[in-house]
């Protein structure tokens, strides 16, 4: 007798999705090893030429740039999200809690394109931020923020913030408050308690949030495309240009595969680097 009679039925939707995903991946793989026929949407014979072409500096630079962008985004997101998550978990005021939740989670419901357009309004040369700073007399001329890596990172931080706040809040809420009370009774002030107890014990959440932010940013397209305006080159914008401007599907496919492999590798590396920290936190 099967002890979980509905398991098969419940798993079937996920199975269907998985089949679709695997089929798509196989198709991408298939494209990646085909030759590009200029001027045609059809592909040529089997070849490894696409992967060899990736070693050219232009593409290597896009990869390096993407990793850097992801790293910066994850770091800034972590720094901004941690205090928010901490306040969210620890405040006694339900008004403050709702406020933080609304501020940090609503971006999830706006969609990447809408959020990115808002950032374009904020970051433009005649945008909100420049206008404000000039009106306040802090700037004489507008500072270029659109079409820069800095602008892209700012917008990406906003995109990844909700998930980071949620993951950190989950980790922080699992920390028994008695640990902090015990430390306090043993003579530790708030700062020492934070760095010796709270921070190490929230390490699993930090690692999970950081990796997720990294992976999200790696695959982000609309934000670097619109705010970078072609001047900030990332793997995803490159794939777009190759696929939909040059219609070089085979090369776009091979770039996608390498991009996927690279982001998995970086996340695995992060996990590896963080595992001593996580073990230290004792919740692995």
């Amino acid at each position: 007798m099967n002890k979980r009679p509905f398991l098969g039925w419940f798993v079937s939707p996920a199975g269907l999705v998985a089949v679709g995903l695997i089929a798509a991946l196989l198709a991408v793989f298939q494209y990646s090893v085909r030759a590009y026929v200029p001027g045609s949407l059809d592909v040529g014979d089997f070849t490894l030429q696409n992967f060899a072409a990736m070693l050219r500096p232009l593409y290597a630079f896009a990869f390096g740039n993407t990793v850097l962008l992801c790293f910066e985004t994850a770091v800034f997101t972590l720094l901004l999200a941690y205090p928010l998550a901490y306040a969210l978990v620890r405040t006694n005021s339900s008004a403050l809690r709702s406020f933080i939740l609304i501020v940090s989670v609503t971006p999830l419901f706006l969609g990447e394109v809408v959020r990115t357009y808002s950032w374009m309004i904020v970051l433009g040369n005649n945008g909100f931020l420049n206008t404000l700073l000039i009106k306040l007399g802090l700037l004489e001329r507008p500072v270029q923020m659109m079409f820069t890596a800095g602008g892209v990172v700012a917008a990406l931080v906003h995109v990844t913030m909700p998930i980071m706040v949620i993951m950190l809040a989950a980790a922080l809420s699992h920390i028994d408050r008695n640990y902090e009370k015990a430390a306090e009774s043993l003579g530790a002030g708030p700062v020492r308690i934070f760095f010796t107890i709270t921070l190490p014990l929230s390490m699993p959440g930090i690692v999970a949030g950081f990796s997720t932010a990294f992976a999200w940013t790696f695959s982000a397209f609309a934000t670097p495309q619109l705010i970078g305006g072609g001047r900030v080159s990332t793997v995803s914008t490159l794939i777009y240009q190759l696929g939909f401007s040059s219609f070089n599907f085979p090369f776009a496919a091979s770039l996608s595969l390498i991009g996927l492999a690279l982001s998995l590798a970086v996340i695995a590396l992060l996990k590896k680097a963080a595992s001593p920290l996580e073990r230290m936190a004792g919740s692995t």
Partner: protein
Amino acid sequence: MLMRTDRTTANRFAAGSDKVRPAVQLDGVTKRFGGSVALHEAWLKIQPSEFMTLLGPSGCGKTTLLNLVAGFLEADNGEIFIEGALVTETPAHMREIGIVFQNYALFPHMSVANNIAYGLKTRGIDKREIGRRVEEALALVKLSGFADRKPRQLSGGQQQRVALARALVIKPKVLLLDEPFSALDKNLRGSMQVELKQIQRELGVTTIFVTHDQGEALSMSDRIAVMSAGRIRQIAAPDDIYRRPADRFVASFVGDANILSGRIVERQGDSAIVAIGDVRVNLAAAPIAALSIGDAVDVFVRPEHLTVTAQGASNALRGTVATQVFQGDHVDLYIDAPGIAAERILLRAPGIAMLSSCPAGVEVGLKIDSDDIVAFPPGAAP
């Protein structure tokens, strides 16, 4: 008055011995949460080296009182002194108090040694001294050789020892124990109680122990503060609490008690004579001072203070055995005595002879065989 002090002077920790400066003193401390009062004007003096237990059901305010002494909560009214110094506004990390939590709260990311060293490091003590004192603390709780383990590699009892060592190594002014035995199984609990009491006496550390278990309270404490609904009902030595409870709540919460209905027949100074059926008992008049002769009272009689005699014996109550429960070293007899007690009377008879001599359905005589009988005005708990 909300609080009664103990009546014995024999106890070395008797309240009111103001010659020694109390280790902990609460002067009318009140704590409210929202609209409800968690602790109502608590007055309490704990002497140096005393083992003081806060006993009461959950929600009685004992944990609130503990948190106020620890500094985790701020009092709304009243003052708290530790070793004579006013600490009402002092933050917890400056109070020099050791705490053992119910779940021990050992830092999971630190070794046993680092857990114990934590309080020494915050004090900026040098490394060699820390090493020495950690070793000493581990030896005290019989865990030498466990220094490098992680808390999750220890059993519940071992974790508790580490928690105790961590709290004691800083030489706290007061040791606070928040239901420390409730997570242990019964056998271990007994041996840990003995051991904790021994360590406490050896070090002479002033201790406040919070529990809802009257057995723990009676066996470990120098004095017990019985609490209910945010108020301290009685502060006294364990035997006083048991023998001379100050009110109905204390009488029924600590130990078992049969409630028999009686009537005041005579009053002589400090004592009164109360008739229960045909039986007359002599008891303290203070708790029923407000009543007059002829008034009904509830008489509290412990199960072990009743003995079975022949039916029809003089000066004995009459009842019928309803059930008997064999308990190994003694027999619990449940006796119906309509008119005398609303509920079945519990009688604890030593030995197992009662099993055969008092089967269910037999009529028996009951003798009240103790001076430790108390009476209170009738009614629900005050």
